[in-house]
């Protein structure tokens, strides 16, 4: 080191070169710090995502745009609210975009997903905005999926045509800010260059027609291997009432606007389910085919969001009857795949489905309606938009292990942590 200086990271003094980028200094000191838009080779750093926020001398700063100076007091993990702040940034990105992980080509290799798992994002505290965004099929080789763009700016900085012109640029401003592509420049890219652009996109916003990612789903960066299974996500579960002697806990389940996949995943508990039936009593649930609540329930498990008036009525009843409500799966948590319609006006959806489809006969076609059938809501609502939800198990479907741990927690009041590999959105 030419000009060594001393900074304090979480109470520990370390020596670094004067003017080192703070994020590098922190990582060199083997302190784990997440980031989404920081790449060593991009100088100056993009500084857009703010996930690498730390506290320096009492103020929040993005560590990727701050230079280490002598005497700096840096807090990374010692203050748990900083972890929450970084988590909030990732949750904001989820709420802002339309990230349907189970339907995304990049799923498993997506850095936003990885960051969500790492930080333990099981639900976004922010309601999803569901803004209608373009999928741009105009470029020669690429498809630009604006729903998935997190505006990190990496492609803007890195993807250049052979004569040094930018292929991407930020466009518009405010909540309309997006990354636009230059069709003319894009057409000059070689196939290798185009595929490179797809690879450097941290999410699935840049796709190349006819090209898929090398590894199959389930076998990707954030599915296995690269994230050590020793890394866990601490979960805090709400308290359940104490049991009297000989009493069994009562569970109810329901599938609202879902596909029953989460219920299938519950069955994936395999032999565990045999233990379970000994220990708990099921009340209203498709598993028992009990249609109506017959008593007060300890835990209600909700699959699916609310897409019609009946879903809302059922969910409200669950809230009244159950001490604790658990949203299970992406649909219950924020709408999931059914919420793909949320960016399209309901009238258009209904007309497309019932009036203009290939199978509808012009004369007879109507949009179904009768006093006995539920009314379709203007959009699919997350369960926690309708009632309070106490816990969220993410996934499409959630991992059986994650479910099992939650169940164990309820039954035995045991603290537990979820492994990173048990944390899934797809």
């Amino acid at each position, binding site marked *: 080191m030419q000009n060594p200086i001393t900074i304090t990271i979480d109470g520990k003094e370390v020596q670094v070169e004067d003017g080192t980028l703070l994020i590098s200094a922190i990582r060199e000191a083997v302190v784990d710090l997440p980031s989404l838009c920081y790449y060593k080779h991009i100088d100056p750093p993009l500084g857009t995502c703010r996930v690498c926020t730390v506290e320096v001398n009492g103020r929040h700063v993005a560590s990727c745009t701050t230079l280490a100076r002598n005497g700096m007091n840096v807090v990374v993990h010692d203050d748990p609210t900083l972890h929450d702040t970084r988590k909030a940034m990732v949750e904001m990105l989820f709420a*802002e975009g339309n990230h349907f992980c189970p339907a995304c080509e990049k799923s498993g290799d997506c850095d936003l997903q990885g960051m969500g798992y790492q930080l333990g994002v099981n639900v976004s505290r922010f309601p999803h905005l569901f803004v209608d965004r373009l999928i741009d099929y105009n470029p020669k080789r690429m498809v630009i999926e604006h729903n998935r763009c997190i*505006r990190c700016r990496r492609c803007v900085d890195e993807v250049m045509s052979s004569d040094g012109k930018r292929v991407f*640029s930020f466009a518009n*401003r405010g909540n309309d800010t997006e990354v636009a592509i230059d069709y*003319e420049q894009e057409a000059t890219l070689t196939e290798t260059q185009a595929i490179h652009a797809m690879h450097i996109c941290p999410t699935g916003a840049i796709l190349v027609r006819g090209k898929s990612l090398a590894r199959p789903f389930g076998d990707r960066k954030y599915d296995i291997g690269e994230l050590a299974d020793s890394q866990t996500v601490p979960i805090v579960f709400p308290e359940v009432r104490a049991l009297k002697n000989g009493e069994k806990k009562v569970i109810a389940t329901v599938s609202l606007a879902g596909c029953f996949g989460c219920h299938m995943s519950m069955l994936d508990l395999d032999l565990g389910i045999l233990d379970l039936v000994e220990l708990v009593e099921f009340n209203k649930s498709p598993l028992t085919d009990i249609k109506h609540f017959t008593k007060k329930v300890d835990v209600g498990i909700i699959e699916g969001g609310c897409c019609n008036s009946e879903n809302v009525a059922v969910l409200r009843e669950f809230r009244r009857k159950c001490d604790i409500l658990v949203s299970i799966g992406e649909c219950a948590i924020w709408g999931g795949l059914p919420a793909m319609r949320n960016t399209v006006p309901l009238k258009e959806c209904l007309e497309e489905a019932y009036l203009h489809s290939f199978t509808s006969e012009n004369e007879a076609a109507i949009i179904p309606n009768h006093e006995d059938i539920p009314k379709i809501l*203007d959009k699919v609502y997350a369960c926690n938009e309708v009632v*309070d939800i106490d816990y969220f198990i993410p996934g499409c479907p959630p991992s059986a292990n994650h479910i099992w741990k939650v169940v164990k927690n309820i039954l035995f009041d045991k603290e537990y942590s979820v492994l990173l590999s048990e944390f899934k959105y797809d």
Partner: protein
Amino acid sequence: MQPIQLARPQLLNAIWAMHDVKGFLDNNDIAQLAILFNTSAVEIDGVVSFYHFFHRQPSGKHTIYLNNSIVSELNGFEEVRQAFEKETGAALGKTDPTGTFGFYETSCIGLSDQEPAALIDFFPVTELTPQKVKTIVAKLRSGAPAATLCDEPKNNIRYTPGERTFILKEYTPGTALARLKDFEPMEVIQQVKDAGLMGMGGAFFPTGIKWEGCRRNVSNRKFVVCNADEGEPGTFKDRVLLNTMPGLVIEGMALGAYAVGASEGIIYLRAEYRWLKEKIEQTLEDFREKSWLGDHIPAKLPFSFDIRVQLGAGAYVCGEETALLNSLEGKRGEPRTRRYFPVERGYLNKPTLVNNVETFATAARILEAGAEKMRKLGTKDTPGNKLISISGDCAKPGIYEIEWGMRLGDLLALCEANDPNYVQVSGPSGVAVSMKERNRRICKEDLLCGGSFMVFDKSRDLLKILLNFSNFFKHESCGICTPCRAGNFILNRKLEKLQMGLGSLRDLVEIEDWGATIKQNSRCGLGQMSPNSVVDAIHKFPEYFDQRVDKSGSRLNRGFDMDAAVREYEEAVK
């Protein structure tokens, strides 16, 4: 033959030149600019789409921008909007079918003391009424150019503190400049330091330290930039300064240039003040004739300095100094990361001094009158005087030169606010103040004010005001960092929910939490200040919010409105 190529800082001017011809840029224009600037079309488009006065679709032979800031909204925006739509045949955000008129809304245009106001072809029209709109549009139709119809905006200088007036006293051009004969550059800086001058744009950074920092950075080229991008809603003091004494501002810039060793100056003038450009340029010309600008400015040391005016194009964030520098360089006005101060690497990476209009004007007054004179005014931490732009519910909206330290209640009495309930100090990004705080003093020791002072009486609905502010930030965020871009959008939805009467106590807690997240983590001042007004208001007007949220603690979320949720379906199956 090599095509002629232009340097990137010329981009905004090149776009303006093309834009002025037909009121928008088509794809050919963009392609042509891409060739001129040797860049890709998407990069040009990125710049064009950043600034809201640039259009990519026809914007009419006459383009009308109606101000949608809160003071306008409370003084008849809606009726005036309807009148414009009726008379021109253009719906808001569009042109009429014949393409004669384009009608758009825009954020504060610096005329809050004479609202509702609009710009027509960038000429101001003020105190609009449906009747006045009818007359104006009829005249435009009959071929009268907007320049002949516009109003000369009133300066409305309502109050100066008599003998103790410092900024708005009589101005004799050349007085401050003449003082340079007695001063070394460091002595000029010392004067500014001794006077205790701080940045009057709202950041209040000590001006002397900034000047000294810029002087210390050795470079063959330095710049002095005057930030005339007065965009904070409710502020119009810089407009009045530039309209009444542009020379004073120019002299201030020249002093700054002499002090830091710069020879090039730029006034970054917001497009909303385009109507002032000619006046400023004429003044610059007069100065050159008198050798007050140019190669041989009489000063103690050899000194040459000249100034050009750069027109902005509509973006509030360009008032942030690093965003302004990017804009000057012909880029999107995104704030830079704070690795270097502008005095280290500013415009074109050269040391650059950026100060606000009022700061330069005050600097000139300091050299005229001497630092001690200013020290005798104001408070210990904020010596001197401040220009305050008062608007809203008071009998005398306009400019007030007050001594720092004046009590809020006294200022309210001066402007004849009869029934004030809520004052938004320093604009939407400032502080919300209730009448319990009447005794607070306007100064650094207590309550700073960057210039905007909006008064609202008891008849005004707080949420309507806050939602107006929130809409403003949602659109004016530069969009580059997550908390400001997404966070302000999210807060905006939350306020809409409250306004619909669907809020609960938890929503108020969340607004505070999420507001803190946006404040602490945004890249620049815009994001860092954006949640201030709403968070303050929740604290200071608990009775108001108490009545508007569900406090039952019910676990059935009141925010879900079943009637509203099935309305679309019921319409569709009717």
